[in-house]
């Protein structure tokens, strides 16, 4: 069992450093489960984890950490070291730093990110100079004029402060020793990967499950916490910038930085690659590596042959993005077509208790108490997969849902919304060796279409069996975890560190009284540089 060491610089070198934002090991979810599975699939490979969080996030681990994890490092976005106290002669550096931050946050970063890293490492300037000083305020006023002149200054200030501080927090963080850095999204995780690539010269891979900028765009599109002046009326297109545009530009900038510095950019399915190209990812870096599941485990599930009511299964958290409401509405319509149908919902409810309560209330409104069962978490989902006749997935957004792959591996036909790679899984794609459909793809938020598709499968034994067979053949071919493990291990081993690897421990910013020259950093005490937030613990 590897030991966790007090300081990252002294820790053993991991083979892979996985970088995740707001997920593993503190939050349950698809990407967190994927990370857990990736590490467990390769026990001979050692991993270090960088978890990007904010200070208000509870640091309660939701996963048992696998034995091949050698360390976990938290980077807290809203806490950044002060750095050196700025002197009069630093004014130019401060103005330059603020301009570089502006370029990154404007969505067109080019080489600004690496220049900013070099500036902070070379001068020792950080938050105290680039955010808290008077020259920084003056420079920020100009940024405000450039980015949001018609918007409220106070809102802009706090937006600027959070975004700029998060960048400073990232580029002043210590880095664990690792042979390859692997970010599991762009955004902040991608920035950390890009930072690691620049300062260590070690290879950097970015994997996108969903497209980060798209996901943020959607979140911001319905966010009620962002001030909207309403000045645009219902006009679309040419319009004054709003605060949400500032956030969006920042996230676009983060993705562009990630893509520019990454050696390889992977995603699970083809449709995502188009978005990556639009966001500036170089085509030669793009690869597809799908999700993998334990096919043998699920293929061994024996379908229940005893007489049982037609059963529809839905597996997923009871949260708005899974659109459980549409599933319940569809069940109501389905009951008219298949009166003895049973609908089983498996998934935790604690993430959004109000929504879950609303779903239970909807069941009562529709009189479905005898039809819909909320089971919460279950110890072994295979038992329910064996008893089900069809799996339903009504999500509004997905990438490549593991629950769908696992159900399909047991030979269960599926009805899903047209999100993520669900269509590819159910209908196959152009070069798919397995031809045919393993279910139906329907429009999101459409209970009627969902109910009709489910009824078609439930009422036709032959169709159900043939769709199940197609799923049984398609899944091992493409999504077997051994195949995926090989793909990742091959990818990792194919990446060589660049010639300019820094072999010495990384020194971050700050000096005790002496200024460092550009490009050269003076030795300093680690305790002073890296506060307790970086301490490692098991």
């Amino acid at each position, binding site marked *: 069992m590897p030991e966790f060491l007090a300081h990252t610089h002294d820790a053993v070198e991991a083979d892979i450093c996985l970088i995740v934002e707001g997920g593993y090991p503190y939050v349950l979810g698809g990407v967190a489960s994927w990370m857990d599975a990736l590490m467990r699939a390769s026990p001979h490979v050692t991993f270090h984890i960088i978890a990007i969080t904010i200070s208000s996030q509870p640091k309660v681990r939701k996963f048992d950490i696998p034995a091949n994890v050698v360390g976990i490092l938290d980077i807290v976005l809203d806490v950044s070291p002060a750095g050196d106290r700025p002197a009069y002669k630093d004014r130019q550096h401060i103005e330059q730093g603020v301009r570089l931050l502006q370029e990154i946050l404007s969505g067109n970063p080019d080489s600004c990110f690496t220049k900013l890293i070099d500036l902070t490492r070379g001068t020792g300037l950080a938050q105290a100079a680039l955010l808290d000083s008077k020259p920084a305020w003056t420079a920020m006023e100009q940024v405000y004029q450039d980015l949001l002149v018609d918007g409220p200054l106070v809102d802009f200030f706090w937006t600027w402060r959070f975004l700029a501080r998060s960048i400073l927090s990232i580029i002043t963080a210590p880095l664990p020793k690792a042979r390859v850095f692997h970010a599991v999204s762009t955004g902040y995780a991608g920035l950390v990967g890009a930072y690691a690539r620049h300062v260590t010269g070690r290879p950097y891979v970015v994997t996108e499950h969903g497209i980060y900028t798209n996901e943020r765009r959607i979140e911001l*599109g319905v966010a009620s916490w962002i001030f909207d002046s309403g000045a645009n009326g219902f006009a679309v297109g040419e319009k004054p910038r709003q605060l949400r545009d500032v956030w969006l530009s920042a996230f676009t900038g983060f993705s562009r930085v990630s893509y520019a510095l990454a050696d390889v950019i992977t995603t699970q399915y083809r449709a995502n690659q188009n978005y990556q190209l639009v966001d500036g990812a170089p085509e030669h870096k793009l690869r597809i590596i799908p999700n993998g599941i334990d096919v043998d485990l699920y293929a061994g599930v024996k379908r229940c042959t005893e007489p049982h009511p037609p059963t529809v299964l839905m597996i997923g958290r009871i949260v708005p993005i899974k659109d459980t409401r549409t599933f319940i509405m569809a069940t109501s319509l389905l009951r008219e077509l298949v009166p003895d149908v049973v609908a089983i919902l498996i998934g935790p409810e604690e993430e959004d208790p109000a929504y879950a309560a609303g779903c239970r209330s909807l069941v009562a409104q529709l009189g479905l108490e005898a039809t819909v069962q909320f089971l919460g978490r279950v110890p072994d989902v295979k038992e329910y997969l064996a008893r089900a006749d069809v799996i339903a997935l009504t999500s509004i957004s997905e990438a490549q849902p593991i629950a769908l792959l696992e159900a399909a591996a047991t030979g269960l036909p599926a009805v899903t919304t047209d999100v993520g790679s669900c269509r590819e899984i159910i209908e196959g794609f152009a070069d798919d060796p397995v031809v045919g459909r393993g279910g139906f793809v329907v429009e999101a938020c459409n209970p009627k279409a969902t109910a009709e598709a489910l009824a078609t499968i439930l009422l036709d034994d032959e169709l159900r069996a043939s769709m199940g067979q197609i799923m049984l053949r398609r899944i091992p071919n493409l999504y077997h975890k051994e195949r995926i493990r090989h793909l990742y291990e091959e990818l990792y081993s194919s990446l060589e560190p660049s010639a300019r690897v820094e072999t010495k421990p990384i020194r971050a910013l700050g000096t005790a009284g002496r200024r460092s020259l550009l490009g050269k950093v003076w030795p300093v005490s680690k305790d002073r540089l890296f506060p307790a937030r970086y301490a490692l613990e098991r």
Partner: protein
Amino acid sequence: MIASSSTVVMQSNPARRTRAQQALLVAVVLCPESVLFVSFASDYLSLPAYLGLHLGLCALALVLGRWWSSVWMLVACTAVAGPFGSLIGVGLLVAQNEASGDRAKDDIKGTAKLSHLELLHGSLRDSRLRLGSASSIRPLLDVFIDGTPIEKLDALSLISSRFVPPLVPALKLGLGDRDASVRVLSATVLAQQHNQHTRCIGEYLEQANREPDAPANWRRLGQAQLDYVGSGLLSAERTERELSAARTHLARADAMERAASSTPAAAYA
């Protein structure tokens, strides 16, 4: 407009601060300089000692006041002309500060006395006023037919924040869009609207079941169901069902109210 007023605010604070700093300067620079000069004039200090202490004091003032550009002028005057220079420097600083205070006052007065032309310019600039006829505004539905994905996402964001029933067809067009992000955001906005109604109906239903004898509970429930019907979000079949349930609940509330008003006690009242 916001920018200029914030500039005014920023200028006023340093102006107030400067008075205190000037007093401090007089204490820190002028007094020791005067003591030095008097000592030199009284032959307590030799010329080299006086010059050394004088320049040392200037350097110290520079180091202490490195963040304050006004100190440079004061130190330069003092270095050249000793305590007399300090007096001249302080006088110049006071004059400069008063001038900047007047400018700030002018700015504030200027904001209040904006001409009609300036007001018109401001209104046009922040889009409170538009030139051109109403027909120049592109209907949102057209955006979903021939707009770019970014325009569609912008439109969906608007619909999310300012939903009205006539916008439902636009949302439904978005559900079938070629771009996955547009489909996802359409579904998100649609689900958000549905959730608001079902959550509200659920709460009233629970309340009505808890207190079935209160007609107001059934009336609220029926009204919420009517609102859901009026939202345009429901399919034809579901509209029928929800409408029928709303009628039942409203009729129940009416019947309960009638029954309550026909009781002898109510008649007496």
